[in-house]
């Protein structure tokens, strides 16, 4: 699960990691009101503000999602421009993300910019600290062009981030020695945040050294382990459903694992690995997969029906390929579910069903005799070829 920058900064603050002060607004009027009331950040001396669109994607600056207001009076105008705008960044996909909230924060004088992140490293099974002197740049780009400018250090979560680790990173970044202590404390706090809230990644890009010699997280990005959300009530409360695909939310309500893709051939599969392989085989047969969908072990009539509805909720879908390897679940039960669901849902696109495994022959027989307009397949690739052909024929 991901959260917004303003939420991540609030979380940072609660763990003693310094961030710029700011407010989040969802209308220009609210911004005007806060300014006229001299609320919080508008009461002080600051004359420069950053006005930042809040979406769950990086690359906002380049996409025009961050404005610098040189005076308070410029702020409402920028808020107006950003709200309701669809930002397209390299992480949003071509459809972009609608801006519903804007974060306004005090501008900071930047003396130096750094990159700092903590990620869960599956290979070393440690928390990995990544630090770079190239703040403000995409870390993947730095990694490709100047790998020597990145320091990677594993941290044992049991031990936490000790002072020596902090000092080593501080030295690598070339921080003034007077800041080693403050930096080490910040890194230890971030590690504690990482462990206590079950993070997968915490990223500060850039971390800045201000003109007056303070460390400040100018941006904040945090993502959490979905498997741990059951014990992270406060984190779960930060979930923003507007940032997630409607069909994916609907699917998760029915315990279906669905990811929307850009293609035109939908697939419904039992098991995550087989679902991925099915997408690949659709591509191999000359089609484009419209989604990932794992219906799990059950595949009852209700599950299949919900799955059909979700697949058909995507207007790009031109055909459906059902691929079930019946193990514990017998294929004739799955066939029954498909027949009942297909009748209720009234499919208007070609359907190919591939059944294999337990009682597959009986299942296929039931499908053929159902009178439904569908094709039956025995092998995976055969099924993929049939659906690709059917979709081409239907055009």
């Amino acid at each position, binding site marked *: 699960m991901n959260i917004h920058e303003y939420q991540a900064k609030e979380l940072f603050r609660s763990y003693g990691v310094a961030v710029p002060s700011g407010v989040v607004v969802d209308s220009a009027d609210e911004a005007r009101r806060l300014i006229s009331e001299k609320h919080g950040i508008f009461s002080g001396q600051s004359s420069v503000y950053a006005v930042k669109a809040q979406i769950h994607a990086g690359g906002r600056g380049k996409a025009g999602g961050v404005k610098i207001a040189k005076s308070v009076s410029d702020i409402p105008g920028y808020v107006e421009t950003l709200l309701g705008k669809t930002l397209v960044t390299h992480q949003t996909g071509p459809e972009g993300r609608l801006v519903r909230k804007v974060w306004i924060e005090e501008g900071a004088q930047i003396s130096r910019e750094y990159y700092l992140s903590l990620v869960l490293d599956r290979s070393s*099974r440690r928390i990995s600290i990544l630090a770079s002197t190239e703040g403000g740049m995409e870390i993947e780009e730095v990694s490709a062009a100047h790998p020597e400018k990145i320091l990677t250090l594993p941290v044992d979560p049991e031990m936490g981030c000790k002072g020596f680790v902090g000092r080593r990173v501080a030295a690598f970044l070339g921080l003034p020695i007077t800041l080693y202590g403050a930096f080490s404390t910040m890194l230890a706090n971030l590690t504690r945040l990482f462990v206590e809230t079950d993070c997968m990644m915490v990223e500060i890009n850039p971390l800045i050294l201000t003109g007056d010699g303070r460390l400040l997280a100018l941006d904040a990005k945090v993502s959490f382990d979905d498997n741990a959300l059951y014990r992270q009530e406060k984190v779960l409360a930060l979930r923003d459903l507007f940032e997630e695909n409607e069909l994916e939310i609907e699917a998760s309500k029915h315990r279906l694992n669905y990811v929307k893709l850009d293609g035109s051939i939908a697939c419904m599969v039992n098991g995550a690995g087989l679902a991925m392989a099915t997408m690949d085989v659709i591509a191999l047969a000359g089609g484009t997969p419209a989604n990932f969908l794992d219906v799990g072990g059950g595949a009852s009539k209700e599950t299949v029906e919900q799955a059909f509805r979700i697949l058909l909720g995507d207007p790009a879908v031109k055909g459906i390929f059902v691929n079930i390897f019946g193990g514990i679940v017998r294929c004739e039960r799955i066939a029954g579910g498909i027949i009942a669901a297909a009748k209720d849902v009234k499919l208007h696109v070609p359907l190919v069903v591939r059944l294999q495994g337990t009682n597959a022959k009986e299942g296929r027989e039931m499908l053929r005799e159902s009178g439904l307009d569908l094709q039956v397949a025995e092998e995976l690739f055969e099924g993929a070829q049939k659906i690709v052909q059917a979709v081409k024929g239907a055009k």
Partner: protein
Amino acid sequence: MSILVDRSTRVIVQGITGKEGSYHATACREYGTRVLGGVTPGKGGTVHEGFPVWDSVKDAVDAVHPDVSLIFVPPAFAADAILEAADAGIELIVCITEGIPVQDMMRVRRILDIRNEEGETVRLIGPNCPGIITPDGAKIGIMPGYIHKRGKVGVVSRSGTLTYEAVWQLTQLGLGESTCVGIGGDPVRGLNFLDVLALFEKDPETEAIVMIGEIGGDDEERAAAFAKAHMTKPVIGFIAGLTAPPGRRMGHAGAIVSGGKGSARDKMKALESYGIIVVDNPSVIGKTVAEALSKGDYRRVPTCH
């Protein structure tokens, strides 16, 4: 021969009175596995579906000396269950549970690694896996037993149903399987591809290995490098997720291309460079194994030791 489990393997089930545990303990027993009973805290001394139930793994170990514990405990308690089994001296732990927080698994792995370094033997299969089966010997997991046939191909995979797909092909072609190990779809797990490849290399019954990987991490690459350096048997590889977009998790917690790393394309290239026979169509896994085995000259001699 086979690896890790056979007809003599003694099994207990943690979480045996739960719906899943109960169903699969019975299914494993029906397959012929020696399921001696199970553990559910608070239900010790009772009998469930004909299985004796103990309060703790320690009690079960004292009573019946099992070799393996099969775990069906809910995610919030699964890490504790694995550690309990390890603490009681169980040498092979198979954890089916899906949805364990990854940091819990990091701690579990850490503790198991320390125990192994200190001279104990404790192996973990999973979590988030179908388990392990030696056809006609022992089924310790949730896979459908009948699709398997005792034979000469070792199978190791991060997936469940995709493994059944490959197994079914091997069975239909009459090649059969020596042992199939589902190592699981989580980012941090117990046994890895590399560990299982090493076991298959030593197993006289295994003549070829099917390795089914997917996007995310670099475990397939590490295993392939090992295969090139240390293995004589052909390895046939498939990687799922060629069409998966970067940054999106594909069902399995571990199936994600992140930071430009772990894509299917890169993995396939790496595997090929290490001499693994890579198939891009999962429908031809069985056929490719048969071809590799029929070419007598295929068997490679390791280039270095």
